[in-house]
């Protein structure tokens, strides 16, 4: 049993909602980088380094795809690297692409953490009664993320053994990988549809649903909520004040040096992101202590 299992699902959900909003609105490269590192750390604590490493190729592929898209579709920026079909390909577009890729990866990792900390059952118990459709949608979206890696492997293996998936040249290889991704999405969607059928078949969404057991509710939830709000306020200041907004086109290097509001964002945001790692870490230390007393 992890720390999150003993919290009320609303606390856990509110936490991840906050961290996801922070990640999706952060623009400064330092903020993005620190949130990314935190997401990697948290996922590592949850599933271990070995399984994290297994996901690296897929992550790199995604990063590469996002960067390439931005690089070839956006032609703004001052530092031109080369011309493609008469259109400039710029350094700024590349860097912006990398930063969006890192942001997307962090969001995926935090979502995967959420699905681990708040498994489908608890997600349903949180929303199922009042908002069955939202609960189902959240469950479907977040639920299949952890399965992505394994499923992707199966597909590349099978298509690779088929021979056709291996073209010559980088472009053909990228094409083949994109096909694999499209199979992955279709299969996962099919699976989610079947799962939704399984739920509807058993009366999901009927008014007046009950719960077999009550969710835990303790003072811990209240304390965490207070801490979360206290940290969120400074973290959200730059979002609403517009200060410290990062701009890739044109690139302004002086903005790399953070001002006060950005520093606040940076520290508060990182503190929020590190919160579960600290709590789970405390838990592990307690275990070690208890074991040493036996």
């Amino acid at each position, binding site marked *: 049993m992890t720390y999150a299992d003993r919290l009320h699902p609303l606390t856990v959900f509110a936490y991840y909602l906050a961290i996801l909003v922070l990640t999706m609105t952060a623009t400064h490269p330092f903020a993005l980088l620190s949130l990314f590192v935190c997401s990697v750390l948290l996922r590592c604590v949850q599933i271990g380094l070995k399984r994290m490493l297994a996901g690296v190729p897929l992550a790199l592929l995604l990063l590469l795809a996002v960067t390439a898209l931005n690089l070839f579709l956006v032609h703004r920026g001052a530092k031109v690297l080369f011309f493609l079909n008469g259109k400039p390909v710029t350094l700024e577009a590349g860097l912006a692409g990398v930063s969006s890729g890192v942001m997307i990866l962090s969001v995926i990792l935090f979502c995967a953490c959420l699905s681990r900390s708040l498994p489908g059952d608890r997600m349903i118990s949180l929303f199922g009664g009042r908002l069955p459709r939202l609960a189902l949608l959240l469950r479907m979206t977040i639920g299949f993320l952890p399965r992505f890696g394994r499923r992707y492997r199966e597909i590349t293996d099978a298509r*690779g053994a088929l021979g056709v998936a291996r073209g010559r040249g980088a472009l053909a290889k990228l094409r083949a990988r994109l096909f694999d991704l499209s199979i992955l999405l279709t299969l996962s969607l099919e*699976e989610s549809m079947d799962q939704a059928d*399984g739920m509807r078949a*058993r009366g999901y969404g009927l008014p007046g*649903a*009950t719960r*077999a057991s009550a969710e835990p509710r303790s003072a811990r939830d209240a304390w965490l909520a207070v801490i979360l709000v206290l940290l969120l306020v400074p973290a959200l200041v730059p979002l609403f004040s517009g200060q410290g907004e990062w701009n890739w086109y044109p690139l302004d290097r002086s903005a790399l040096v953070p001002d006060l509001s950005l520093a606040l964002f940076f520290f508060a945001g990182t503190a929020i992101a590190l919160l579960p790692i600290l709590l789970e870490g405390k838990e592990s230390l307690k275990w070690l202590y208890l074991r040493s007393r036996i």
Partner: protein
Amino acid sequence: MAILTVSDLTFTYKGATIPALDGCSLSVGEGEFLLIVGRSGCGKTTLLRRLKPALAPYGETTGSVLLDGTELDRLPPRDAATLIGFVGQDPERQTVSDTVQSEIAFGLESSGADPAEISGRVAETADFLGIAPLASRKISELSGGEKQLVNLASALVLRPRLLLFDEPVTRLDPPAKLRFLSAIRRVNEEAGVTVILAGHDAEELFPIVDRVALMDAGRIVSVLPPRAFARSDDPAVRPFLPTVPRVWTGVKGGDEPPLSVREGRAWIASEYPAPKREAAADGGPDASALPGKRGGDSAPLLTANGVWFRYGRNDPDVAKNLSCSLFPGEILSVLGPNGAGKTTLLKLFAGILRPVAGSVRYDGKKGIPKTGRGGIAYLPQNPALLFAHDSVREELYEMTAGSPDGDEAIETIVSRLALDGHLDAHPYDLSGGEQTRLALAKLLLLSPRVLLLDEPTAGLDPIARGEVRSILRELGANGCGILIATHDLSFAAEISDRCAMFWNGALTALSDSRRFFSGNRFYTTQAARLTRDLLPLSVTADEAIAALQRRKEGVE
């Protein structure tokens, strides 16, 4: 008294022109056990889903379905959810919760049962199905058979009056299959729940069902008790008969067709008693009748030499000092329980996995070459993994891109695998059997020398199985080496030159197929069980029929 009355039900999928159900009429009595057989794609699944309001497909419906006198669509949603239970084919995809007990409780919670009552009802149901020890386990850690029992429990806990099963045991290995089917039988006999099951598992079900319905092209062709079904003269019925009555029909036996192995043995013992002198000679395998290993003298295509394999440094060994060879023109079947490592063996041979120790050789050279063309082709258990395009035609063109006589090759394959009518269909809209055929077509366009097939008959109807069988035989005759991982024992018996069991990380009991099946008492075919000690060695229905005919002539 009829609990379910289907009258003149016609259903057309949205956007389709041909109705999927075409005037189906059916009446099912309270407490009855009805088996629906038919080719895949004939409308079995559509009919079952139409009987469960929450799963009803989109489209146009005429006719009526009455549950206990009430029009199905007018049933209050709560009753529609609880009174009719549905268990589908894929054990993985139906579960919605994380642990067994919350999974079973899910329906009760959704339908608003009294919280005080829920755990009691979950406990009672889990106990009845013998899965109480699994209660706090995670669903993802269960075997397929266990998952399917949990799915049954989740439907049963709602106290349904009608349970619908759509090919529930297709993905299970033989022991899990028997366990699940006997659970259904208990639910039907002891709890009195009406059961409608669509599937291709006639062998195990004929002795226990009340009636058998045959569907064809959206119509219900006949609904008969199993013995009357076996007696039927209709040629359309024949392929769907299980081994024992098929042998009976094959030799035009007495008045009462036997259904179970026990009845069949009693029938053979009384009608075809063994002449005294023959008995001793019949005991062992008949060496002269053993099919020779085709091309047995030639060099092996694929060899594994002392292969060890595990998935991670600290994981258990899946392959332990495994050695075997596959010869050109040979069909080798590897049997064994799910999770034993059959798929791992295929992946090692396909070059997807590499041995930790030992070596895999192809054509005498170490290692597996990368490309599939003219080499090794691998069919994964889920054929959908191979489909990347929006139509069957594009799937096939993908394989021949750039080759000059591609169109011709596609044409030949399409007609040989009976895919003509589906060229514009989306691969995901095909039935299970059609998907297997499409995947096989893709592989065959590579003109491979070795085929590695993972459960190629899962979900195939008897006719499609026959088609796959003849295609594989033909490929074998042309020198293709075929390695099949399967738990379909009768298919393995019909097609293989050699069989082996995957056990404890290696292939054991590797021998020619007839010796394999006649040597086993339990892990063997219905035909072998039916004829053991009574007739000369017969491991398939056709062999048993031939043996009986020989004896008849000998006696007369």
